[in-house]
């Protein structure tokens, strides 16, 4: 197999965003924020020059989770809420692949919350992009963990009673080593954030404020536009400062920070697994041990 990591990219072979164009018709509603996310994902991959066969998308179920179906790259479109364990299994078995999970807020923070919390601690070298439209869109508008308290939907006619889940606070507190926020109304900035997240070594979360033109009439592009601001513009902001990051992560309402909220360095999970020291598990021979090793085992149980 060709080891692409060693290939020098000739200008004429440069990977462009359109390299990752899928062959299928995209079925999202016209005006859906997911279009911007899709294009930013392709731009980020092109920026990083990662060829499609080295990318492995994993998604769940939901409008946003259809993203890998619209990209030319490897992928596994799995179950609702279950993308992270699959993604981590892929990464543990073949860490030469760039593994990116793309899911909705219901998927990642609701049904998949248990996996989310543990992925934060584990620091597997994967990227999680959450298309956070603050609603269950594919099932037609029920409230989600990130829906504002009081949100009225078919299952919460008197308004949602729980306080909303704050994914970025959770991620920082839980041990993620890269936590960022992007906005589907600003694909260029979003692409830059994605590129940083994908390049980051360790678990990277990007929570994307995504507009849903059908089921979220409140958190619209127009609602977000005057509120969002970019942390990159603030020369004094240091994403390595835990306390400062926590402060920013709590900021919501009139002013909503975008960009890299928090960065930390910790060995990735895969780096700490002894069996992976000699390369990706998938590339090691199936029965790579010797007869002597087997005899050694036999002696140990005698």
């Amino acid at each position, binding site marked *: *197999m*060709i080891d*692409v990591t060693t290939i020098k990219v000739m200008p004429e072979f440069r990977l462009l965003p359109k390299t990752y164009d899928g*062959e*299928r018709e995209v079925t999202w509603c016209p005006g859906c924020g997911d279009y911007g996310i899709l294009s930013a994902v392709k731009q980020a991959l092109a920026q990083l020059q990662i*060829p*499609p*066969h*080295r990318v*492995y*998308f*994993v998604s769940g*179920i939901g409008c946003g989770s*259809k993203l*890998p*179906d619209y990209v*030319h*790259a*490897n*992928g*596994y*479109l*799995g*179950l609702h809420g*279950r993308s992270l*364990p*699959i*993604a*981590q*299994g*892929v*990464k*543990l*078995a*073949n860490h*030469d*692949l760039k593994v990116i999970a793309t899911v909705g807020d219901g998927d990642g923070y609701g049904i998949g919350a*248990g*996996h989310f*919390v*543990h992925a934060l601690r584990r620091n597997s070298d994967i990227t999680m992009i959450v298309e956070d439209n603050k609603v269950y869109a594919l099932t037609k508008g029920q409230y989600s963990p990130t829906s504002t308290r009081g949100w009225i939907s078919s299952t919460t006619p008197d308004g949602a009673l729980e306080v909303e889940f704050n994914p970025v606070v959770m991620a920082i507190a839980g041990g993620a080593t890269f936590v960022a926020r992007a906005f589907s109304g600003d694909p260029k900035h979003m692409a830059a954030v994605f590129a940083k997240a994908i390049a980051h070594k360790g678990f990277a979360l990007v929570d994307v404020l995504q507009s849903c033109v059908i089921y979220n009439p409140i958190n619209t592009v127009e609602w977000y536009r005057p509120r969002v601001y970019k942390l990159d513009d603030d020369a004094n902001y240091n994403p390595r400062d835990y306390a400062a990051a926590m402060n920013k992560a709590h900021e919501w309402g009139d002013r909503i920070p975008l960009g890299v909220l928090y960065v930390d360095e910790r060995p990735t999970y895969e780096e700490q*697994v*002894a*069996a*992976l020291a*000699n390369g990706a*598990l*998938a590339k*090691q021979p*199936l*029965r*790579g*041990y010797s*007869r002597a*090793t087997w005899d*050694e*085992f*036999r002696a140990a*149980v*005698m």
Partner: protein
Amino acid sequence: MIKNNMTIKIGGEAGQGMDTSGAGFARALVRAGLQIFANQDFMSRIRGGYNFYQLRVSDKPVYAPDDATQLVLAFNQQAIAQHLREIVPGGAIIHDAALKVDAAALAERNVHAFAFPFEAKALEVGRPAGMDPKHAKLMLNTAALGATAAITGLPFERIAQVIAENFGKKKGSAVADANLAMARWAYDQALQSADQFAWKLIPPADGVNRMILNGNQAIGLGAIAAGCKFISAYPMTPATSIIEFMTAQAKRFNLVTKQTEDELAAILFAIGAAQTGVRAMTATSGGGFSLMVEALGMAGMTETPLVVVDSQRPGPSTGMPTRTGQGDLLFLLHASQDEFPRIVLAPGGVASCYADTARAFNLAEKYQCPVLILTEGFQAFASRSVGVEEMPFEEFVVDRGKTLTDADLDRLTPGEYKRYALTADGISPRALPGHPNAVYTATSDEHTEYGRIEDEDPANRIAQHDKRMKKIEAMKREMRMPEWYGPKHAPLTLMGWGATRYAIREAVDLLNAEGIEANALHFIDIYPLDETRLANELAQAQRLIDVEGNSTAQLAQVVRVYTGRTPDDKILKYDGRPFTGAELARAVARMNTQAAKARARVPARSNEFLRVRAFP
């Protein structure tokens, strides 16, 4: 003198170390060239309660526990109470002098009691070695080993070696010396009574050294032999020791083992790993398997090769964690919604746990589907001395089916690869992700040949569903028919599956020895089976008695659906305890007389918790 054929039971509280001393004694015997079968009976608690370790010794292979006990080592009062009845005439009980035994009851049954001041001596020996009373008392174990060696005629050196190994390395030589001194003292004490005990252990001159492995270790080893390099699991008795064993061997064989946050993650990690081409597995018990069910269907849908072990315990929900049962068979056949191909194997015995697990990995890749291994608590914990030749490692041939090699992939035209191509046998060539010529998605939605979501098109749905289901035809040709044991054309056939294999065989032997001609039909491959071939096998059975560890005769239900054949009688046990051959033979014999007599309509009563039903 009765040579090399006895059962020893060591009983006490959890934490007293019966398992360590039992395992140490077993090791000494196997090193001496004898064969053992050892099982543990323990409660689901860490300290206290009542546990025992049961060791059957012979100079021939032994595959199952026996009811009759020749020697009991009692570490507490309950051990005496519990096992006194099981000791055969002429047998003996070794106990601490502080424990009470009913001498009259013993004498009446011609059972000897050998009392020694183990505890007092342990405190005396432990003090100068710097051991506090709690640790000193643990030396009861080594003392008991010494006494047992003396009573059974085993040379002291045999156990001295194991004790030195157990204590030498980790605990420092003062402790090791104290233990050796204890063992020696007990040995010398007991030697004086040795001629009162008729059962002797005399190692054969030409004895070969064997391995000691339990069913779960054999499953782990079978997986490793097949090239499995990945296990993810969440601890659940009686499956936990599979991931523990593989983790202990991870450095030796370069494995990745992962304890995950729950069983959902366990199966999903394994599916992710399998998707990259690594042979991967997960292992759990029924409760954890229940959580895995949605993902099992996903593996079926995305045609991911995967091995899942269900180590059964009795009861729905939490049930009886440390006990055994066979209640999950129908659940595994149907787990997850709609229809997709799967394979279910139920190994019987340690060697089968090894070989059939290894085979499972080939089947999973060949048919690109989940393979379920159905084992149970009894088999998980029970260990046996296994000859190296019974677990051949060199001979195993890896079969990856239609997995494409790098050379195959190099020849493909980019963009043309179809992961779910419609083929004659339903199996599509499988590319492993990472090659520029085969970039593809796998999809849990119904999908096109390319693996893209196709939730609507009815023709595509039928084509893809039929493609998947077609694999079952080829599987049926490959799957093995149940095996026969005992005289051909016997008027009586015992039918069973999985871990009851050797108890049933022993029952058949006992029955034939008593003049009741019987044979056995035992299933390891459970699903899918060829209906016609199966019907032919069953046609050879005359009176058919179904033997199962559940209350609804689940295998019999399956056999009936596939062949129309209904068993004439059933022996069903679901008290959480394993069958023994003797118990089964008694039940069959009783049934036989009943059936021969008035064809009783009333279910026979049994104080052994067997549900024996005679059908008029």
